[in-house]
């Protein structure tokens, strides 16, 4: 029995690839397996090749692993596209009616397993259940109890009534029986789970749950892949939880609504991708100048411009740090895993309240959309801290005093904040430079004092709240992979593979990127050995930032900008190239990478 099995399900958009994949992932998770499931799709609703990859393992997994041991193909094209990217001896399950040359597959050392999926679906239910037949057949050849899948299907179809549930289950069972009896000796079996209950969710849901736990009461956003599920989730629970989820007319309105709500005193956020974040740049400065707490999530996708709408990238880092004219304090966080998304979801609100400034959370498509099993303890309500910073009760202020100084100059740079609504706390907040009591002025001494006051908040945050890079692996490792965001999972696994292979490697991951933790970064990089940046962008943005802030130039950079997530094997291979003398390794479409599309010019 394998301890780590990867299954790829491919077909045309509209064939139920995603629903089958997600059902399989949930069934695996409930059996106590660790799961990582990710979707590879395009910006279209119907047609075109899509695939879904589910990894099931006995130990925790934080990345997809290639190549997979099983391919479930709903089209002939799926077989053609993926044939060169399967593990030795991999099984290919496909509809017996597809014109696939089984002999040719055998000759490549693969195990063709045709099953009359469409016929079974038609005989026991209807042709639209072919994807369910595929799941049944899959369960049959990898030895996974169908009851687990049945339970998930029952829930999925519950709303549609028993007359929909019954034939789906019949189709799954018939296909399972056929596959299990026809291919009883398939070598790749699904590992056995430990039956411990875990959660299965993606980064966007984890981040939204973190926000909810923090008491976020307001989100305004404009739909944009891959951020949309955050707004959708908040909208779905909004009525019951007392959260206003506003679909705004554009991203400028979205961020301005969030700033308005934050100004009034609600914990408020917006979520978008790079294009929408670009539109929000001016308002970011408004929040900085008027010292309004607001949380802005940028779920990155491939850029520039419309770029690769359904592909992953980490190319907004330097933009997030620098966006908007002028200089003002901001905080930039970049969670690396689903549990870190949850934590960033609530921590961002505390930082926004504490430092009265915009907090940007950088996520990415891969992290936002990949389903991962997490231990319930990592999304524990009790772990959530709510810190509203120097929020004062306006009602307790002395109404006869000289007037409320909303922007009072303090040593920390933080001015005690009362919300609008109390007689003694009346003030106006300008986007212009202003006095301590909020009146517009261009007076020179005031300007200098106010700039210093606001910028001091970054120093205070750096001292009290910003985390240095986290090291995973041995201190003395010869190689350190330096990364941020979702690259963490693949980098950690790559480091383990390298270490097992006699090249001791560790990972240095930056969860907080601004204000940049200069001292901690400098110290961590001093003992890093050969420091190699691993990033999903062209220009090595974290490496640039590190050099800008510490003077330390990384010894090598591994860069991918093809929109596909890193697999650990990609990184291992690239590290060997760095060891062989290349300083910059640009990942090329190759054997380890996910397949290049065969079709060109179809994306919208």
């Amino acid at each position, binding site marked *: 029995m394998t301890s780590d099995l990867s299954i790829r399900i491919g077909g045309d958009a509209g064939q139920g690839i995603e629903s089958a994949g997600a059902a399989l992932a949930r069934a695996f998770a409930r059996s106590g397996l660790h799961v990582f499931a990710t979707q590879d799709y395009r910006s279209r609703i119907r047609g075109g090749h899509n695939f879904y990859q589910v990894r099931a393992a006995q130990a925790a997994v934080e990345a997809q692993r290639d190549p997979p041991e099983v391919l479930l193909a709903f089209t002939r094209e799926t077989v053609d596209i993926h044939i060169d990217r399967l593990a030795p001896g991999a099984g290919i399950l496909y509809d017996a009616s597809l014109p696939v040359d089984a002999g040719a597959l055998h000759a490549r050392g693969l195990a063709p397993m045709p099953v009359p999926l469409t016929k079974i679906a038609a005989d026991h239910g209807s042709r639209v259940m072919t994807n369910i037949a595929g799941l049944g057949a899959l369960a049959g050849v990898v030895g996974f109890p169908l009851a687990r899948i049945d339970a998930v299907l029952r829930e999925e179809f519950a709303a549609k009534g028993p007359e929909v549930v019954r034939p789906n289950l019949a189709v799954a069972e018939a296909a399972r029986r056929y596959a299990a009896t026809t291919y009883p000796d398939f070598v790749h079996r699904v590992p056995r789970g430990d039956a411990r209950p875990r959660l*299965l969710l993606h980064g966007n849901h984890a981040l939204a749950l973190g926000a909810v736990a923090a008491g976020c009461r307001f989100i305004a956003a404009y739909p944009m892949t891959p951020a949309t599920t955050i707004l959708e989730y908040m909208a779905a*629970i909004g009525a019951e939880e007392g959260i206003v989820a506003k679909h705004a007319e554009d991203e400028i*309105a979205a961020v301005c609504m969030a700033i308005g709500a934050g100004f009034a005193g609600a914990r408020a956020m917006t979520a978008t991708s790079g294009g929408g974040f670009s539109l929000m740049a001016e308002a970011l400065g408004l929040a900085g100048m008027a010292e309004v707490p607001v949380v802005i999530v940028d779920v990155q996708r491939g850029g520039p411009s419309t770029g690769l709408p359904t592909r992953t990238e980490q190319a907004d880092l330097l933009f997030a740090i620098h966006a908007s004219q002028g200089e003002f304090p901001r905080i930039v966080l970049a969670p690396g895993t689903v549990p870190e998304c949850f934590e960033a979801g609530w921590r961002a609100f505390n930082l926004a309240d504490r430092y009265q400034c915009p907090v940007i959370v950088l996520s990415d498509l891969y992290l936002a959309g990949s389903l991962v099993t997490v231990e319930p303890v990592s999304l524990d*309500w009790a772990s*959530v801290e709510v810190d509203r910073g120097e929020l004062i009760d306006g009602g307790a202020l002395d109404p006869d005093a000289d007037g409320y100084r909303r922007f009072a100059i303090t040593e920390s740079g933080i001015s005690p904040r009362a919300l609008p609504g109390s007689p003694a706390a009346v003030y106006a907040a300008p986007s212009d430079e202003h006095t301590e009591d909020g009146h*517009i002025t261009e007076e020179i001494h005031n300007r200098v004092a106010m700039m210093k006051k606001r910028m001091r908040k970054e120093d205070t945050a750096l001292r009290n709240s910003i985390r240095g890079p986290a090291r995973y692996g041995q201190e003395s490792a010869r190689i350190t992979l330096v990364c941020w965001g979702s690259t963490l999972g693949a980098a950690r696994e790559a480091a383990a593979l390298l270490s097992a292979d006699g090249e001791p490697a560790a990972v240095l991951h930056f969860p907080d990127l601004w204000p940049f933790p200069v001292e901690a970064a400098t110290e961590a990089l001093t003992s890093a050995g050969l420091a190699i940046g691993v990033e999903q962008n062209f220009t090595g943005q974290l490496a640039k930032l590190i050099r800008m802030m510490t003077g330390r130039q990384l010894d090598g950079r591994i860069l991918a900008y093809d929109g596909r997530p890193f697999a650990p094997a990609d990184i291992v291979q690239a590290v060997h190239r760095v060891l062989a003398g290349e300083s910059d390794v640009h990942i090329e479409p190759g054997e380890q990478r996910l397949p290049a599309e065969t079709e060109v010019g179809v994306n919208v």
Partner: protein
Amino acid sequence: MSDARDEFDLALKPTWCPGCGDFGILSAVKDALTTLAISPHEALVVSGIGCGSKLPDYMHANGFMTLHGRPLAVATGAKLANHALHVIVVDGDGDAYGIGGNHFIHTVRRNPDITHIVEDNQIYALTKGQYSPTTPQGKVTTTSPEGAIERPVNPVALALAMGATFVARGFAGEPHHLSGLIQLAIRHPGYALVDVLQPCVVFNRAQSYDWYRQRIYKLEETGHDARDPAAAGTVAREWEERIPIGVIYAEEGVPAYEAQLPALQPGPLTARAGPSATRFEQLIARFR
């Protein structure tokens, strides 16, 4: 005008030019709030950027001077967060109908309980005299040296077309009348537009106080039925010879946006903390 408006007064002297229409608008806003017995801490005056958008700086009330074109969006967020506040937006024609045009359209159809006072002087004044969305065709300005080519926006007709539930036009030279319109707008439970004809004595000398005084007439003196959409549409298109001021259209019985949000039924968002452990556990359980 009421006498007791010093509650909203500040010792600060506005930087507006002598004779600017903004003085009349500021005085009308303060008078309307005083007459309605709304205190400074119960009002939130949100503005954009421009001469008139400095208004919150010159009165004692909660205020937020935001970005050029964005006050409606900021005000909407503030209103949804704390609907107990009386939210008033004050901005100019460039702000509201130019750069903020998209927010204008969508705020009108969204119908939040926000009073929107547009200081419509038909010119970009703070940048010293460029043509605006409401500048008449043919007008020569620094950015239209051969005369403005575009047809001007008709804000009241545009608001009506987007389904506005309250549309009025005032005149900065008649602050008492304007105060009355602002009071009606504040009392209207939904989005209320008060487009204010405002002379700019420096950069738009054509539309002077006299020019307006010769043309304006008061709708309430004509028997105009503000509940009649057809009549509203007709008077909304009047311009040049005779310019109507007063309430052009008022529709009753349409609930405000925030009144239709289940999340706001228990009260303002600002007064509420996060979920209990039990509640949160129920949300998490859906991911098992």
